[in-house]
């Protein structure tokens, strides 16, 4: 603790009038570097670089061993007929060609993945924003609401999926019971080819708590004077929402949507658990209605033992995710507004 006191006194001495605690929340002092193009690094700079690299060396080591090397291996496998057991043989672009031309499941996988990604992201974004807006008013018992919305995200995926096999059961599930109360004869959800994907989206909606919290914090961050100014100018609720709140929130919306899209493409376990456990179950759901790209990778790898092919599929997924990310970043210049004018 004495070190802390030393640090406190040092800071207090350096910045008169600033308490140590307050200093923790102050914006970091920016040292504007005035480098004009390339120049040789000074001795000090080289020393700092060595120190910096030393500190991040664990990450570098981990990156090399657990990310870069597997990435390279995976890329290599995608050009072979590797089946996990026997020596692999180079087959060039054959796997990739097969994916684009003759794999019978690619069409279904692409359609299902896009369906779930688009509808899932749109619905969860709208719902979580709406909830955050509602919670942002001085509502009583906000703690309880926040807890209830956030709790499902703390559960392991297999347990959430299990809970939803109970809720979505056509005969004994809560959802159809509720629908029955208003006179609707509920569909067979996970057993049905048309309703299996909506069932997955409903499961996804249960996990929006994370986004709600983030949006709520973002809403609370919006300077009050802006809202007040708009009100004084006569803007109605919707106008305020559209012209003040949304733009101020747009960086957060952007990142949340981006992360949601990436997660939607990667989602596998919950789909696997749900479709592999419902009644006359098969991976991919009734008539392959829930066969997603990730699921098809699993099938290729572990059921068909075509690990090279699975690697090719996963690389295509990687490239698509990258492309979407770059696209979204590009589009973000148009509609994301950063108050300080800086780009993230």
């Amino acid at each position, binding site marked *: 603790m004495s070190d802390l006191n030393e640090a406190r006194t040092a800071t207090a001495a350096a910045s008169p009038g600033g308490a140590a605690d307050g200093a*923790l929340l102050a914006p970091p002092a920016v040292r504007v570097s005035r480098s004009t193009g390339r120049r040789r690094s000074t001795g000090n700079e080289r020393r*700092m670089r060595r120190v910096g690299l030393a*500190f991040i060396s664990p990450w570098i080591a*981990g990156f090399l*061993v657990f990310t870069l090397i597997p990435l390279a291996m995976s890329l290599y496998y995608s050009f072979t007929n590797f089946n996990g057991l026997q020596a692999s043989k180079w087959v060039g672009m054959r796997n990739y060609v097969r994916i684009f031309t003759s794999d019978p499941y690619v069409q279904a996988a692409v359609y299902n993945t896009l369906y779930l990604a688009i509808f899932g992201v749109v619905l969860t974004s709208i719902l979580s924003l709406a909830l955050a807006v509602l919670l942002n008013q001085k509502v009583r018992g906000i*703690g309880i609401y*926040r807890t209830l919305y956030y709790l499902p995200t703390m559960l392991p995926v297999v347990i959430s999926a299990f809970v939803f096999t*109970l809720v979505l059961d056509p005969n004994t599930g809560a959802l159809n019971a509720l629908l029955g109360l208003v006179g609707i004869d509920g569909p067979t959800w996970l057993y049905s080819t048309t309703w299996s994907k909506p069932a997955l989206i409903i499961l996804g909606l249960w996990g929006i708590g994370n986004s709600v919290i983030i949006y709520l914090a973002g809403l609370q961050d919006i300077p009050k004077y802006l809202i007040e100014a708009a009100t004084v100018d006569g803007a109605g609720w919707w106008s305020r929402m559209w012209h003040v709140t949304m733009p101020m929130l747009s960086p957060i919306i952007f990142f949340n949507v981006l992360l949601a899209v990436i997660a939607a493409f990667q989602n596998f376990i919950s789909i696997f658990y749900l479709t592999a456990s419902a009644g006359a179950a098969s991976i991919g759901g009734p008539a392959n209605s829930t066969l997603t790209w990730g699921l098809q990778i699993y099938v290729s790898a572990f059921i068909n033992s075509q*690990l090279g092919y699975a*690697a090719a599929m996963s690389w295509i997924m990687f490239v698509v995710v990258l492309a979407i990310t770059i696209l979204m970043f590009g589009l973000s210049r148009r509609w994301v507004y950063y108050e300080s004018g800086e780009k993230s």
Partner: protein
Amino acid sequence: MSVPVETAGARRAKRWSKTIVSHIALICVAAAFAIPVLALVSTALKTLAQNTKIPVEWIPNPFVFSNFVQAVKTAPFTHMLANTVVIVGLEVIGVTLSSALIGYGFGVIRWRGRNAVFMLVIATMLIPYEVLLIPQYILFSKFGWLNTFYPLIVPYFFGVPLYIFLFRQFFMRMPSELGEAARIDGASEWSIFARVHLPLAKPGLLVVALLQFVAGWNDFLGPLIYLNDKNLSTLVLGMQYFRTSQYQVDVGGQAAYSILVVAPVVLIFFLAQRRLIEGITLTAVKG
């Protein structure tokens, strides 16, 4: 242009109706969120006969605790609990210390190229795990680590991008003068980190520890792939024990077991709610 003036009364009425509508909406959504949890609890408290009855008995009458007793017996509960505690404990220690160290390296020490490398760190979050899954498995099998805890624990000692980001933010918000005095005195960067910044980073350490605790406790894919032996299972893997045949599941037992498995996480959540939420908002909002 003249602004239409509302009477004070009308404005109050509008505010009231807005509040009521908001409340109703919030309550409806909250109820919708609570229903699955209630269904789980209800299933756990019912016997087999009650669980397969149609029409459904929503509030079990009478309710039984036999499922909980049976759940602990069906799956080797104490073993799995021990395994999970050890694995998650080591993960938490490894990830908090390494991420703090690495975050410091990106956030405090000024060196050329640190922003570019940091972008790379963030970019690795884009890699879908499907791409790395099989090669990592093969790598670990070459190390001889299959069917041990090592593949689950060791990678966390090398930092996790999300937590590195968190710590970097955290350290960047500390005044840069903090270590100046010590630096002038000639102290090494390491001792400045360990003695000045790290103790001040306790809130950050706590948040990361909590986040990793939840993630580790709930991890399913890792243990599924790397822990083959029954007596190495973690709690979440134990869900498999309730399959009585290919298509039959003991729902009462599985529900009871699920509740037992999530109980510690829920407890931690209630105790540390504020910190957790602060941590999450720190990454997303202020980032």
